[in-house]
């Protein structure tokens, strides 16, 4: 072959990928799997002898709009897939987060990495995360075996669900070669109600009330004062056919009247807002802060924030009705990081260090540490896929 040098590290078929891994397995050569490298800054810094590029495994393999199913090789740029979906008026329901702005990275996110990182966005509260839309995978495990799980149909309970295990495993359990997602029609209309000047507690109450109503809220977020405006703003998004959206807007205004008179955002204004919330654009600056992604049950979010404010100063906002706290803290000490982690655990939630300098990411767990028995199972599962520990090992947890 003419390009032996490149094809060795950038396989262009599953068979080549498998051959490469068989070799790495035999020689115990740790690999770093690279999609678009837009999320390199996320996770533990880890040592890998070689990189493995997915760029030559690219292309849509299957798209059936009437079956709401799309499949693509793992290295396919997300942009290409979204363009294809857009043409047929469809979308990924889980609104995958783009990490480029937050992590200051370049390049194009790939579809395989969306699956591997289980990325999602504001619509997660109703549509689930990437793992809920991912219906099939093909991957090469750490022995070089080419394996499939799930398939191209939405309902499938045949055997153990390794699709879910691969989603969010950050490439530590296999190199995804192809992924199949279910998709949804794009809503005809989107509208957002914006409430002013609510405190954290009130905002979460408002969002809970809206989400507990029959009016099908598809996103609920709260930006604290100072983020974009000098007042706080709390948002409720609804989507669907125009007449239905108009009706539900009216009903939501009515049941939320005690929270004040909202503004209504439509069109590009609304779309930009939700992309900004999804991609943490409100906490990009200053860049020398650590940014945390904390999940707790929504009503605990304001309490956690209040308790933490007594100990630290930081900026934060809520997505997922309070279920997701984005927090930026300019004190990048280990002690500060530990306080944040502790707070998440106290409220039975979990915290991930989403953006931080290398040294900090090397000195504490980036991902939420697990209980001892779960950690033991985690190690067992890693070994069952990747016995020589060569695939992105150490990216999530030391030794995994």
């Amino acid at each position, binding site marked *: 072959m003419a390009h032996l040098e490149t094809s060795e590290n950038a396989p262009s078929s599953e068979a080549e990928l498998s051959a490469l891994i068989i070799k790495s397995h035999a020689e115990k050569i740790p690999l770093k799997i690279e999609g678009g490298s837009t999320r390199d800054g996320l996770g533990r810094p880890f040592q890998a002898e070689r990189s493995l590029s997915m760029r030559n495994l690219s292309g849509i393999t299957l798209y059936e709009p*009437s*079956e709401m199913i799309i499949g693509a090789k793992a290295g396919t740029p997300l942009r290409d897939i979204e363009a294809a979906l857009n043409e047929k*008026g469809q979308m990924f329901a889980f609104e995958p987060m783009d990490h480029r702005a937050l992590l200051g990275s370049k390049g194009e996110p790939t579809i395989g990495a969306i699956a591997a990182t289980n990325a999602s966005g504001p619509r*997660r509260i109703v549509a*689930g*995360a990437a*793992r*809920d839309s991912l219906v099939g995978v093909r991957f090469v495990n750490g022995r070089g*075996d080419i394996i499939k*799980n799930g398939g*191209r*149909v939405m*309902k*499938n*309970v*045949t*055997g*153990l*669900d*390794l*699709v*879910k*295990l691969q*989603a969010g*495993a950050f490439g530590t359990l296999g190199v995804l070669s192809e992924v199949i997602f279910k998709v*949804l*029609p*794009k*809503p*005809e209309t989107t509208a957002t109600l914006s409430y002013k000047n609510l405190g954290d507690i009130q905002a979460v109450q408002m969002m*809970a009330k809206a*989400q*507990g109503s*029959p009016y099908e809220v598809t996103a609920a977020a709260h930006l604290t004062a100072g983020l974009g405006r000098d007042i706080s703003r709390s948002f409720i998004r609804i989507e669907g*056919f125009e*007449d*239905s959206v108009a*009706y539900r807007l009216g*009903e939501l205004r009515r049941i939320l009247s005690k929270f004040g008179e909202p503004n209504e955002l439509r069109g590009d204004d609304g779309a930009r807002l939700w992309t900004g919330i999804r991609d943490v654009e409100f906490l990009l600056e200053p860049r020398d802060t650590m940014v945390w992604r904390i*999940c707790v*049950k*929504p009503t605990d979010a304001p309490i956690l924030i209040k308790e933490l404010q007594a100990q630290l100063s930081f900026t934060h906002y809520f997505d997922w009705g309070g*279920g*997701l706290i984005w927090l930026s803290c300019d004190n990048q000490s280990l002690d500060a990081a530990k306080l944040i982690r502790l707070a998440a655990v106290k409220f*039975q*939630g*979990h915290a*991930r260090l989403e953006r931080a300098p290398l040294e900090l990411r090397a000195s504490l767990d980036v*991902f*939420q540490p*697990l*209980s001892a028995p*779960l950690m033991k*199972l985690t190690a*067992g*599962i890693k070994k*069952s*896929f990747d016995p020589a520990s060569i695939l992105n090992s150490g990216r*999530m*947890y030391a030794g995994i």
Partner: protein
Amino acid sequence: MGAIAFPKPNTDIMLHRSKIIEGLGALLPADSIITSEDERRPYETDAFTAYRNMPLAVVLPRTTQEVSQILRYCHTHSVPVVPRGAGTSLAGGAIPQEDAIVIGISKMSQILEIDYDNRFARVQAGVTNLAVTGAVSHEGFFYAPDPSSQMACTIGGNVGMNSGGAHCLKYGVTTNNLLGVKMVLLDGTIIDVNGAAYDAPGFDFLGLICGSEGQIGIVTEITVRILPSSEGARPVLFGFETSEAAGEAVAAIIASGIIPVAMEFMDKQAIEICEAFAHAGYPLDVEALLIIEVEGSSLEMDSTLAKIIKIAKAHGVKTVRESKTALETAAIWKGRKSAFGATGRIADYICMDGTIPTGQLPFVLKRIDEIVKSYGLRVANVFHAGDGNLHPLILYNVNDPVEARKAEEAGNDILRLCVEVGGCLTGEHGVGIEKRDLMNVQFNSQDLEQQMRVRGVFDPQWLMNPAKVFPLEGRVTA
């Protein structure tokens, strides 16, 4: 029948039955252990009644601690265990083997916590599916996955099988509605996998546990999402002259951007059976019936229905009948949800559960008909049309061993067909023993070995529901 084999009982364990019962008896109150033959009989099988085995004993723990002690005992003494919810599995998932202890969770039936602001309910695994909705409906909430067996089946069993239902086109199946579980591992260790927060950290254990068919642990507590009920729901009946036309209408509805909460299909045979049972007003002069349900305010439902009706008309719909009253709505769903029971009144049946790409619907329906006819049998088709999850019911006489064998073979042919056209062996009922020996049709040995290696992390000795899911030949431990 009898084409599906169970592993040979371990004679050593059979010989020590009384000692094992004594050992378990020391861990449990007397009314939590069942040993007499008469009382064990209800546990011999599940809803896949063609197969049955008398278990060594049945235990009915009341707490997670008791489950832990039982499992630790069985692990120490290498006694196989079979977890059991309500025993409504259609795949034989809860059928025991003679050297196994059945661990039934039916006494663990408390609702532990309901949180409307955060929209979740935490329940013990033995709570029935419908009881979750029952506990929250007065506040305008419901639990979405709705298997037709929802009055009887347990949430634990739903997690075991990753069960679906008629409304999962919009709301997803069990795995999409799960937030956390408490589970006991074979060695008695109790693990908590996530709680009420989104996006459990680490590997997706919840996803792995859901649908693992009792092979990797016993789930004792479950946190599920509860959702606000819509303002209203209205099913509409659409009768078509051919199933092709019905299938095309389904595709066109989805292509138009509408996702109805449910789109259920019945063929003529199924329509007749269900109508005779439920008197739901199903049209009898059509070849195919779609029950399409929409939700929302009456205004919204009117407008969505107008769009759907327009599409249906473009595809030559023959009858359109909207439900006008709550009573009618109930009758329409009663007919659909009792399709299996109603079929059971006219004949014995086996219920298949393959999924196909919906574009293959007309071809597959035609082939199913041919396959079943070639065995000299009859078939009724009901299925979830939006997602291609088929439920052909093959009618036969259980007392005629030749016919029973034919039904099983016809069923296997249908499942092979589902895989051939790009689908899978089971959409919601699980593999159990029923489809175990067909797993090689869908997966190659490397696919299966990877699954078994994961299984081996939890149960290297194959003690947990060991007769299920994976073909008896070619098993790997780690």
